[in-house]
């Protein structure tokens, strides 16, 4: 179980992974494996997301109706499940990003060495 513990520690905060997924599938619909590679690449390998941890997050997004999934045949002739963002997902992403920015601001205020 050492693996899963580490993953949980690496999760920055609840909802961060979901945000990244939504951002990625907003650009273009993708299947799970492609999503992992995409997020790793985009973060310059800084975010060492455990590949499996993506799937629970995808399930949560599916449940909330923020993404849709369909089985398709990929270019490499493989049966893959492709995720698309829904309009609700788009709205949610916008909201999350703005509140994330506000939170970042708050944290940096609290953590800043010179207290006003």
């Amino acid at each position: 179980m050492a693996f899963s513990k580490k993953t949980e520690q690496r999760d920055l905060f609840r909802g961060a992974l979901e945000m990244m997924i939504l951002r990625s599938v907003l650009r273009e619909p993708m299947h799970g494996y492609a999503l992992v590679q995409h997020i790793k690449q985009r973060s310059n390998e800084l975010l060492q997301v455990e590949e499996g941890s993506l799937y629970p997050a995808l399930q949560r997004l599916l449940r909330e109706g923020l993404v849709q999934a369909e089985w398709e045949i990929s270019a490499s002739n493989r049966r893959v499940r492709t995720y698309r963002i829904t309009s609700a997902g788009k709205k949610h992403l916008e909201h999350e990003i703005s509140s994330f920015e506000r939170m970042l601001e708050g944290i940096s205020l609290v953590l800043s060495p010179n207290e006003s």
Partner: protein
Amino acid sequence: MRWLKQLVTRQGIYNDLSEEIEQHLAEKTEALMAEGMSREDAERAARREFGNVTRIHERGREAWMWPLAESLWADMKFAFRQLTKSPGFALTAILTIALGIGATTAIFSLVNAVLLRPLPFPEQDRLMWLSLQDHSLPGVVPQSVSYPDYFDWRAQNHTFESMASYARSPVILQQDGDAQRMDAQVVSSNFFQLLGVAPMLGRDFNLQDEKPGNRAVMLSYALWQSNFGGSKNIVGKTIQMDDEKFVVAGVMPRGFQFPLENPGPALWKSIADDADGTSPKTVQRGFNVLAVIGRLKTGATLDQARADMNLVAGNLAREYPDNDKQFSSALVEPELAHMTGDVRPALRILFGAVTLMLLIVCANVAGLLLARGSRRHAEFALRAAIGASRTAIVRQLLVESVTLSVCGGAAGVALAYGLVQAAERLMPLDIPRMNRASIDGSVLLFDLAVSLVAGIAFGLLPALRMARSTPAQALREGSRTVAGVRGQNRLHNGLVIAQTAIGMVLLIGSGLLVRSFIRIVNVDPGFDSKHVLTMRAGVSFLKMQHDQHFLFYQQMLARIAAVPGVGSASAGWPLPMNSSNVTVSFNIQGRPMAKGDEPSESLGVIMPGYFETMRTPLIAGRTFDERDGLKGPATIVINQAFAKKYFPHENPLGQHIQVRVGDDVFNSPMREVVGVVGDIKRKGLTAEADPQYYLPFAQAVITNPYMVIRTNVDPMSVQGAVAAAIHELDKSVPLYQVSTMDEIISKSTAQPRFQTFLLTGFAAIALVLAAIGLYGLLSYIVVQRTLEIGLRMALGAQRRDVLGMIVKRGFMLALLGVAAGLAASAMLTRLMATMLFRVHPFDPLTFAVTSALLLVVGVAASSVPAYRAAQMDPMKTLREQ
């Protein structure tokens, strides 16, 4: 319906997830192989990078579960971790809660058993208690019913499916040369059928069994087992009771009894017994001994039944004015309400008291949570900073407090179980069904509900308070402050004041009960109860006729008086503090009255020496002696209340009274009043002594009297010698109801003692909790203000100034609590007026002493933290800050 759809489609979702994960691993393996890895290595690497597949599956599925339950579970796990991290706090809180919830649950189990549980009979809500209303006295005065009235009721009413009569009628069971006295009932033939319980063996009674000459008996399961070995052949056999032969009709199922007083009768006789003889009870309209129960017709209402029965009783009163004139209406009440009517107010008060105690417990734990919360400010600030919403923090805190209270509730169940067991053993009470109090499903449900409500009640305010502080403010406060958090202290102060006020209400309530109880036990019962042994002898009325009966008692008492250790012995009926009582109508010579208007008072029948043995004072004239024997002139002795009521302005001695009692009731002699004695509290210590008159036993042999034996030694120690003396005379006479007079008096005060004991217990706990609450708050304030106190001392404040400052704070809080408590008590104590005996609900002494007590306790509770504050070393304190 979304959840239903989910439930159906969930398996499909999980299958998709599995396939997706398999595909992912396959794609990854291929990619790694393309980089030159062997298939085996690539597969292993793919799995490693993916993580724990089972766990991922699990978490993926969790996404589809009920989100609130899921996060509640997480919160609860976290709450447990938090509590185990500070076991001292958790244990204190849980024990306090267990005390509150345990006591509440215990009282609820009593309330449940006595008041709430339905009667154990089918369609019990249609069972009605019926009685005559005596209009010759003010208020609601139920009067037992006579056989002729009962038969007319049964025939003439229109609202009852059936109506049955029952009356106590102890018997002596003669078996194998042994005689045993048994509690028994005489019941009408439809009694069992009306209650809806059939005999488990044999046949039910029928109308034939009510006819004179027949002798049928129904056995209880217990008697069948104990005396007849549970033999199925008993049905149809003959058994001997009171020197007569009875045919066993059947056996009732185990545990059957009605009414539900304890213990239940050993057997039931049909009313044929009372229909026999030259002047049978079944035709005497003035012989009011029956209790009546009815089963309403389906659809009939209580009001309809009342109107119906009033009509029936009114007709009978007009038809038979000689006997029924004052009984022109009837009382109808649901049986359950009637049975529990007497104890209902007392149980309500107890339940109210224990609820108040629970409130104190909640306030106390809320105080604990507040103090603890202030140490966790930084933790919650950090959580808020990383995005926890206010709701999430409140929810987390509430889950913590509910976890505490559920743990406390679980411990409370154990406590309640112990309390109920102890109450049963320590407090023998004649409350119907109380011995059936148990921790059953509804009590557990109650316990759980109270735990949840209490958890939210004491957790909510502190939680809201905690969640209010903003992260930045809280983190800044992580460093020591001088003034403390004002708002939080205000809340904490309020809690302490509330605890004191509620504690005050409980203390005043218990103080009033204690004062009342002291008044009760100091009432002069009209006789000296110390060193008096009482018992009854089962002398058969069939074997010994009137005169022999009296002579037998005379010899028996002479033998008893000769037993070493016995001072004197006599006999009389009824015994004081005993529910048995008969009122008989009479008329006074020179004051002619129409037959239905004759006055009626309580009758006593006594042997010579009764008042001397009981030490009841003689006021005028003489008591009975050998002159008042079988052949002597007809005499009567009256008590003071009787003299005052009927002879207010004349000398009662020498007056003549005719009492309709004895063998020839229609030709009773005029009796001369030969003496006036002091009043005996017949009904109980708290009741007013009522007018009573006494006839010599020789002239009115109506029942087996109670023997009263005054001893010079411990009365119970002569019991064996007395029994031996009686059995020398006649071996076949069973002795029963052996008790000391002190025990009888003590039993008559059992209920007030029980109430007083319980309420005082609650009040004591409340006092301790209020003291702990105050102590806790002040200790907390002292720690919070360490810097300030150190500064003050450094600036020249004396130790006694610091001491005074803290004690004054405690005193002020106690004073506010006392003031609020006084106001609340003034409103609440009137509710317990009916429980008080010769004590006013606003008894100034109780109010004053309680206030003083609470203030003293308040100062005492503040002095420990105050002393601690005064002992601080200012330099050390300031350096440490």
